[in-house]
């Protein structure tokens, strides 16, 4: 049986209540907006790239605990990474939240592994991945709103 404490563990609640990097970046080199029409969640991701490296990253928006915590953890995780490293991280993160319950968790994900419980709640995968899809759009400098239907 899926464990609620797994989905709403302390780290997740902490990041949702006190999100890190929850601010705008005035001199952002790229921004993107993500929208989940199902639950009305909206997130804007800001990026400052320095020679292909994510020098600064932040987000603002509203959403459920899972989407907020995931955005917060993401900004911590990708800061200082190259574009391709960030992309690789997203791929591994996505694999984790869509894994079969009980599958071993990729230890290279570090703190992001706290969201592994999301795989027990398939309807919440979009919540956990909204910020990541939006980051991808910002990295590719796509202007349109990312919509997760």
């Amino acid at each position, binding site marked *: *049986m*899926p464990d*609620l404490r797994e*989905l*709403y563990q302390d780290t997740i*609640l902490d990041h949702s*209540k006190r999100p890190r990097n929850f601010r705008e970046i005035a001199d952002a080199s790229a921004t993107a907006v993500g929208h989940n*029409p*199902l*639950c*009305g*969640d*909206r997130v804007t991701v800001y990026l400052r790239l320095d020679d292909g490296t994510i020098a600064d990253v932040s987000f603002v928006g*509203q*959403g*459920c*605990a*899972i989407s907020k915590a995931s955005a917060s953890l993401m900004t911590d995780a990708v800061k200082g990474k190259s574009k391709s490293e960030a992309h690789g991280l997203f791929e591994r993160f996505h694999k984790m939240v869509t894994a079969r319950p009980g599958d071993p968790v990729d230890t290279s994900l570090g703190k992001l592994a706290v969201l592994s419980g999301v795989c027990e*709640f398939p309807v*919440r995968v979009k*919540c956990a991945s909204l910020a990541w899809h939006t980051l991808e759009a910002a990295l590719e400098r796509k202007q349109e709103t990312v919509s997760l239907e």
Partner: protein
Amino acid sequence: MAKPAKVLLNVPAIKADFPILQRTVRDKRLVYLDSAATSQKPKQVIDATSDFYSRYNANVHRAIYELGEESTREYEGAREKVAAFIQAKSAMEIVFTKSTTESINVVAYGYGLKGKIEKGDEILGTVMEHHSNHVPWHFVKDHKGAVLKYVDVNDDGTLKMEQYDALLTNRTKIVTVTLCSNVLGTINPVKEIAKRAHEVGAICVVDAAQAAPHMPIDVQSLDADFLAFSGHKMLGPTGIGVLYGKPDLLEATEPLLGGGEMIREVHLGWAKWNDVPYKFEGGTPNIAGAIGLGVAVDYLTTIGMDAVRGHEMEVTEYALEKLARLKGVQTYGPRDVTKRAGVVSFTIDGAHPHDIASILDVEGICVRSGHHCAQPLMERFNLPATARASFYVYNDLDDVDALVAGIKKVQEVFA
């Protein structure tokens, strides 16, 4: 008609008719509080649909043989039952569609877009409509140049009737309104709305998706011109809906679907349509769905729609009282249960509706979260989303208690 009394139904006996309510979810008793999205089905309805397929499956209206006669008799019998259920004068005023959405589209397309509406004509809706009573009218605006106007709601979830009067003019051709809000539970004064619409020569289209399952409906007393509802929200199968229309208006409405069943004669390049209501039922209809809906109507009629309404008033009153006592919990819509149905939208301070629904799910409680296909209304109340519990004949006060306990759990998690 006597006012429904707030008396609870014999819920254990009703629950015994619903196979799904015997199962558990995540090892917990299933507490189903999402009937506004779709209702569960009693075994009588399930048996009726499977009976059709196992005993007399044949296409309707054309077969010469016995099976076809039986299927046609049952299909048309369901039309009679639905007509009686909403006090229509004749079964010929009942069109079977696949859903409320399709029913409203038939009117918007066949009466609006292809029919009576000219550039500059006004269609008056409300901000509390479901998307299915917004978007079809957008088509009429986009293709015919109709002007769309909307009546706002008061903070208590009731319609601004003085604004309705101000917006209603001789340019208004169609007034379209929900009988019961799927977010606020508000029961709108449709009889009065229709009367005033008729005074300026407009017709009144009624979305009864949330009303038909839960309260007595009398289309003649309401004087509704068109009225739409779905089978699956009233104990019936999915994929079957109803459009009621006054005979002259149905005559004046063009069909949405061309094909078999809806024709009288077909030649190369032209065709003559069948009579109302058959001209709207192009293609093989959802025969099993209609038969199942007929049995759902039987089931509800046996309980009595006054009794259904009375039961839900009692459960809703209990829920509103219990939720009002919880600190940090807000409910929306009228407080007076005589003015609202058993749809209770709520929010909890510090907890997003999605998280509320996930935590309740682990307790075996099904509630909806999101914008409930009513984005304009959510914007009006400046809400990105709410959680919503909705009640039906198989819900009792224990289910409300389970919801309250679940909400306390949500508050513990987000304390």
